């Protein structure tokens, strides 16, 4: 494709910008980011009230006890207030995003499918082992698709397991595919671990891709997008 163009005209001082993130996606992203942090921190405080996955008698604590300094709410009751308030924002922004992606058809760009599997390792090698960058002709590379799709998976998992823990008498039928009521708490914890694994990777990538990329998640417009030749530094 002959898309070579001068994007930054030295005389007029114009710049090329591209609309990377629609408003709905940005709102959902930031609401969800805040809610996720609150859910993790308050969730750890709730876990501290009974840091075990077994019975009360005899109580055997889990081998990792979250440091209280990383938790939110001060005590079980306070943490539950945060958790029960922000769960609506967490789920609401998640649903908003998913519905928007479905309606606009944008989900096709970002949903990880079996055909993306073979592209994951070359991309990971590029990022973490300084391998050659594989050619990417899509909006998101296979590793990005895997990461973003996994957050939707963990979001759904944390929501469904949370529903079972919150209202087991109403959603008992939902506990069955999880392996029973006790597994809901375990899978809920696992989904939190999934998010905790995603966040640093996501932040490192954001840091590596620079200010223009980060700023586009705020204003939607990305200055000098890397796919236009001669448009500033490429990653």
């Amino acid at each position, binding site marked *: 494709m*002959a*898309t*070579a*163009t001068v*994007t930054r*005209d030295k005389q*007029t*001082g*114009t*710049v*090329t*910008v*591209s*609309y*990377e993130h629609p*408003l709905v996606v*940005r*709102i959902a992203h*930031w*609401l969800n980011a*805040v809610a996720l942090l*609150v859910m993790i921190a308050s969730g750890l405080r*709730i*876990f501290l*009230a*009974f840091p*075990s996955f077994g*019975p*009360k*008698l005899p*109580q055997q604590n889990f081998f990792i006890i979250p440091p209280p300094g990383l938790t939110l709410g001060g*005590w*079980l*009751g306070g943490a*539950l*207030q945060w958790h*029960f*308030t922000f*769960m*609506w*924002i967490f789920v609401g922004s998640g649903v908003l995003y998913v519905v928007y992606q479905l309606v606009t058809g*944008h989900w096709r760009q970002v949903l990880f499918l079996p055909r993306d599997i073979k592209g994951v390792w070359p991309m990971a090698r590029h990022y973490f082992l300084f391998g050659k960058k594989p050619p990417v*002709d*899509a*909006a998101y590379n296979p590793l990005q698709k895997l990461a973003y799709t996994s957050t939707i998976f963990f979001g759904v998992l944390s929501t469904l397991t949370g529903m079972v823990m919150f*209202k*087991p*008498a*109403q959603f*008992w039928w939902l506990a069955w595919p999880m392996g029973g*009521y006790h597994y809901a*708490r375990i899978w809920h914890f696992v989904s939190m671990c999934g998010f905790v694994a995603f966040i640093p990777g996501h932040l490192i990538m954001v840091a590596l891709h620079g200010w223009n990329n980060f*700023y586009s998640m*705020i*204003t939607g*417009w990305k*200055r000098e*997008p890397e*796919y*236009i030749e001669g448009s500033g530094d490429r990653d």
Partner: protein
Amino acid sequence: MSDEQQKDERAERAEAAQAQPSGEAPPAQAEERVVAPLPQRGPAGEEIRVVTPGQRRGINRRELLKLLPVVAIGAFAIPKLQEPLLKEGLRFSDWASEKLFSEHRLAQTYSNNQVAPFEKFPYNYYDVLDPDVDLGKWTLTVEGLVKHPGDYKLSQIQAFPKVVQNTRHVCVEGWDVIGNFGGTRASDFLRAVGADLSAKYLEVTCVDEYYESIDMATVLQPQTLFCYEMYGQPLDRGHGAPLRLQMPTKLGYKQAKYLDTIRVTNVLSHGQRGYWEDQGYDWYGGL
């Protein structure tokens, strides 16, 4: 945007470029455009524009303003607003919980071999395990919107059909235990004393000065018991002798022990929603 759409657009622009030379436009300009066609769409179909720095600042300012609703969430970081906001959040959560509840939906019950041994059923208390109830003189005081208020003896409460059920007792802390409970349906007893079943709440106070209030829908749910037996034995002192609430659709802190007074009411005493609720637990506490 699909590839086809993109192709269509490119074709249109090519046509426009071709049309220009036949018009008045200077040919030199048209040539430049053909040499350097700027894609109108990125790989994900995103719009591309060439703007001056001033235009770009304008765009960014407008887009920042559109994100203001998100900034509102920062109100939670303001100490003065935090408590009232979280209280509202909890109230909304309780409202949704109440909507979800149906008097006719039963909590799961379990077979005898799923029931935890009696020794594994934890004793939980807020002040003292045994508030020294004088079991011989004990009566349940019934007050409020009832036709027959007064003091009722345990034998009068036990005169109703006994319901025995294996249900899950869930603690807000995160543990749970399946136990065996026996008692009188709260709805049976309340009907017998002529309670106004359209009232909103049942308030209870306990010998150990614990107190609770429960929505009437849950009180009337058929698994809600005035419980006087566990594992086929009279309730022991630690588990709330002689009478406690047992509701498999509520968290443990709602299941008041050592009952002393019950009151049918439409108005909760101010600041008396429940011992733990008044300190920050959610009032509904439903499962």
